[in-house]
């Protein structure tokens, strides 16, 4: 039964991963990363169910908190960039190269 959830979780992770690679707006890229973290959470609770122990559910809590902290830091950085350049596109961030 739990296989379905794992497949869903893998799909979400892949969608998030592809999104990070192809999207251009920093906010959307970041949302895709969050999607990947949520895919992890789904996998954790599924495995917790499968193994019959609570570790996985506990990990999901921690992941949510860490993700929230990451959101706050990330949005702060993106807003800072936006205010400077009036753009949140990762293509415009091209000053650093050799």
């Amino acid at each position, binding site marked *: 039964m739990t296989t379905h959830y794992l497949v869903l979780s893998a799909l979400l992770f892949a969608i998030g991963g592809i999104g990070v690679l192809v999207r251009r707006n920093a906010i959307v890229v970041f949302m895709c990363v969050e999607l990947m973290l949520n895919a992890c959470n789904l996998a954790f609770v599924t495995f917790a169910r499968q193994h019959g122990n609570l570790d996985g559910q506990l990990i999901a809590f921690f992941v*949510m908190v860490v993700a*929230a902290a990451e959101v*706050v830091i990330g*949005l702060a950085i993106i807003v800072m960039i936006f205010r400077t350049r009036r753009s949140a596109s990762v293509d415009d961030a091209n000053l650093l190269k050799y």
Partner: protein
Amino acid sequence: MELYAPILVLAVLAAGFAIFSVTIAPFTGPRRWNRAKLDAYECGIEPTPQPVGGGRFPLKYMITAMLFIVFDIEIIFLYPWAVAFDQLGMFGLVEMVLFIVTVLVAYAYVWRRKGLDWD
């Protein structure tokens, strides 16, 4: 039946608080009418005409949202602790107090840096 007594007491306390607050407010609170208060209720914010296709929100909305996320999520750790409160005993209590103090430090920082002021 005794098992349910605390719940009943809590319900009575809650109801009492709600009724008390609602009845006392008209007598103690200041009354200052302005246009915003007489406007149709939307979300508590003065309704403003929105540009077509959205438009940008001021940054202060985002700051509020970020603060909310951080402090809201911390609650996550309180639930499991509350469930196992008895078994964790003194250790759990001390650890949780430490945790809340840590969050409180962040709160103090936000407050002193005027993160809670709207204007």
